[in-house]
């Protein structure tokens, strides 16, 4: 379904006229004679904790995120909330815009609705905006575009969705981010979807199968060191959590995680036990396992995936990623003990 935007209609709107304005845009498209289908598989609520200048153009407010690419791949009613936290004013400012982006060839055109809201209401009032704008008969995902360690998710908003999508790659402080995720991990209410977690999939496959005779790589009594590039601490800790969750019995102690010189790689993992030593490297091309057996290194390729592909793939999941939950739970426990 992926494709470039064919046409974009947009108009300023207001709280009272959002539905009417969207209907008018559909009529405008319908009057052109070329059939167009409305495509909507879910609600995607995109949260941004910032407010553009008062005269900022609502239509371009999210230009730095691949929103069109995401909704082209997984057509969702896109609801962008640009939120200024901390206001308790009864008449907090509100602005809205509505749009339709069209995709596909002329013979199979489809359109996706977009609603952009700029609000400075009290946090307790935020759900009333989301309830009004989402289609309740569809799954709702909240995409938290902020660094969770710096801007903790608003519980009132996040718990309205079935899924919280975020990207841990942007975390500046892993410990703080895990602290804010802890209640969500503990309650299992919401499906967590970390876009960064997807990058670990070749590495996790390697750990599962790269031992002698296709066995798990982590042998009993193994110690693990994870060296990471300066910007990849979250990924390194996610891997540590995954290993603790899947190989807790085998690990002598929790993996040691630290920044180091790793060349072009993102992570270099060293495993040692009484009889062998193995190195696993995660780079842009995939995961490479050197040792423990003699012979050529094992290479697990990494799927070619854009950021939009990754987010759209997460949106399509309708069930909990139990391995991610287990990894996060292990990390939460680890940090709590320290």
């Amino acid at each position, binding site marked *: 379904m992926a494709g470039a935007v064919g046409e974009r209609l947009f108009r300023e709107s207001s*709280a009272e006229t959002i*539905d*009417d304005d*969207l*209907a*008018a845009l*559909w*009529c*405008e*498209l*319908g*009057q*052109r*004679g070329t*059939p*167009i*289908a*409305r495509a*909507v*598989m879910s609600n995607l609520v995109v949260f941004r904790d910032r407010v553009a200048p008062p005269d900022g153009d609502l239509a371009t407010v999210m230009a730095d995120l691949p929103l069109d690419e995401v909704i082209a791949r997984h057509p969702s009613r896109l609801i962008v909330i640009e939120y200024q936290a901390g206001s308790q004013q*009864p*008449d*907090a400012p*509100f602005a809205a815009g509505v749009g339709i982006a069209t995709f596909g060839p002329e013979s199979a055109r489809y*359109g996706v609705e977009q609603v952009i809201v700029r*609000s400075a*209401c009290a946090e*307790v*009032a*935020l*759900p*009333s*905006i989301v*309830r*009004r704008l989402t*289609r*309740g*008969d*569809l799954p709702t995902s909240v995409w938290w575009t902020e660094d969770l360690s710096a801007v903790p998710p608003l519980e009132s908003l996040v718990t309205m969705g079935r899924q919280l999508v975020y990207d841990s790659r942007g975390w500046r402080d892993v410990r703080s981010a895990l602290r804010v995720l802890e209640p969500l991990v503990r309650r299992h209410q919401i499906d967590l979807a970390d876009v960064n977690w997807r990058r670990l999939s070749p590495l996790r496959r390697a750990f599962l199968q790269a031992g002698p005779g296709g066995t798990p790589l982590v042998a009993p009594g193994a110690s693990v060191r994870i060296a990471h590039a300066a910007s990849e601490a979250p990924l390194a800790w996610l891997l540590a959590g995954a290993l603790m969750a899947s190989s807790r019995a085998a690990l002598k102690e929790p993996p040691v995680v630290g920044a180091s010189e790793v060349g072009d790689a993102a992570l270099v993992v060293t495993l040692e036990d009484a009889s062998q030593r193995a190195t696993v490297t995660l780079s842009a091309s995939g995961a490479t396992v050197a040792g423990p057996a003699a012979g050529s290194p094992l290479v697990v390729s990494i799927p070619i995936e854009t950021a939009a592909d990754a987010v759209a793939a997460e949106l*399509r999941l*309708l*069930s909990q990623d139990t391995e991610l939950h287990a990894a996060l739970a292990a990390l939460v426990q680890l940090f709590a003990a320290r």
Partner: protein
Amino acid sequence: MTIVIFGGNGDLAHRKLLPALYNLHVDGLLPPRMAIVGVGRKELTDEAYREFAKDGITKFSRRPLDEQPWSSFSKMLFFINASIDGEQGLASLGARLDLIEHEGRLPGDRIYYLAVPPTLFAPTVKQLARARFVKRESSPADHPFARIIVEKPIGRDLDSARAINDAIAEVFDERQIYRIDHYLGKETVQNILVMRFANSIFEPLFNQRYVDHVQITVAEEEGVGTRAGYYEQAGALRDMIQNHLLQLVALVAMEPPHALDADVVRDERLEVLQSLRHLEGEAVDANVVRAQYGPGFNVGKPVPGYREEKGVDPNSRIETFVALQIFIDNWRWAGVPFYLRTGKRLPKRASEISVHLKEVPPILFNANPAARLDPNVLSIRIQPDEGFSLGISSKLPGPDVRPYPVKMDFHYGSTFGASTPEAYERLLLDVMHGDATLFMRRDAVEAAWKWVMPILERWAQQSDPIPTYPAGEWGPPVADRLIESTGRRWRGL
């Protein structure tokens, strides 16, 4: 033809009737010789009334006001100051109407629209009779004809509804009476019949063998606003359930009529109302939930609770929300629950009928108890976002066989590329054509009241606190329990 609107300078005329007539004019659907006469107690010139109409059209018409059609439309508009009080009553109205019709060479066919409070229905009709404005029709083809349109509420209980109907029946024959339920004039509501009886795919499924349950929601985002005076005497059961929602139930559940004649269709709708299982005594408590909105938020802004609204008794026990579980005891629908809910200050304005089909057996793709497939749901969106959709499971593209819930969605706007006509446009046109299919017959109005009365009587006996729900939420938790206790849940809107 002459349309005489009693309450011609009121809110209904301003917001709905005059814009609807204007749109009919733009579409070329009004008769070429036509007068629209507003009647009211206020002293207004024709010119002032035209300005009043222009303002209403500018603000509320689905089409922007265009000078060219407005110029010809405005010439049809007149205003007559008249009162129904006293012996003289409508004498001055008669003289002026005669003059307007004479000068416009109009044939004398008249439609009287009672856009006035229900307490004025009977006195107005009496004055019409006294002024000899009405001749009982012996045939629909009679000319000049006199027809009357009555707005809801028709009574506030069965007795008062009968009294109003009796008063009107003293002057007009039933075939001359058009009782409006504007919900029946909505395009999507009319489409229910087309969808059911013009497609072979749906009708075979509309019965207790395949349908698990039906939900009908009419949600209002607004609070009581300026209607507190009326609403304090009505409440959601009288204001919405007794008329709009029961009429929707009738349309969804009715048997196929053998013809599209007004009385044939209305007979079938009546049959459904007469088949509703009566709720009395404790059955009311078990199957009906009422609640009142408290303070909350609407699109981020704080809004007051019902009891804090202007004109509302601070101790009011009037319900602003009702949810019901009802059954239709006939062959087709035996055992199939219908869940109705309506309320003010809900998160959004949305009206929808959803027909929930039974689940597929718990084998193959539905074998995992932790991940049951969504049952198929046919949803008919009445407003906004008019259209309908069918929820089905489809394989998600990829190497795994993973079902994903998708929708086959028909959307009026993108398909037909035009805004759908307002309900009042269709209904006014039908009265002009003498087609009463979309109007309520006396027996249906009284059948609906008869069904509602035991609920009102039960509530009148109770003094325990009414549950509240925060404005901006989907009603009280007890409404969720009503449906969830059966293993179902309200459909998200």
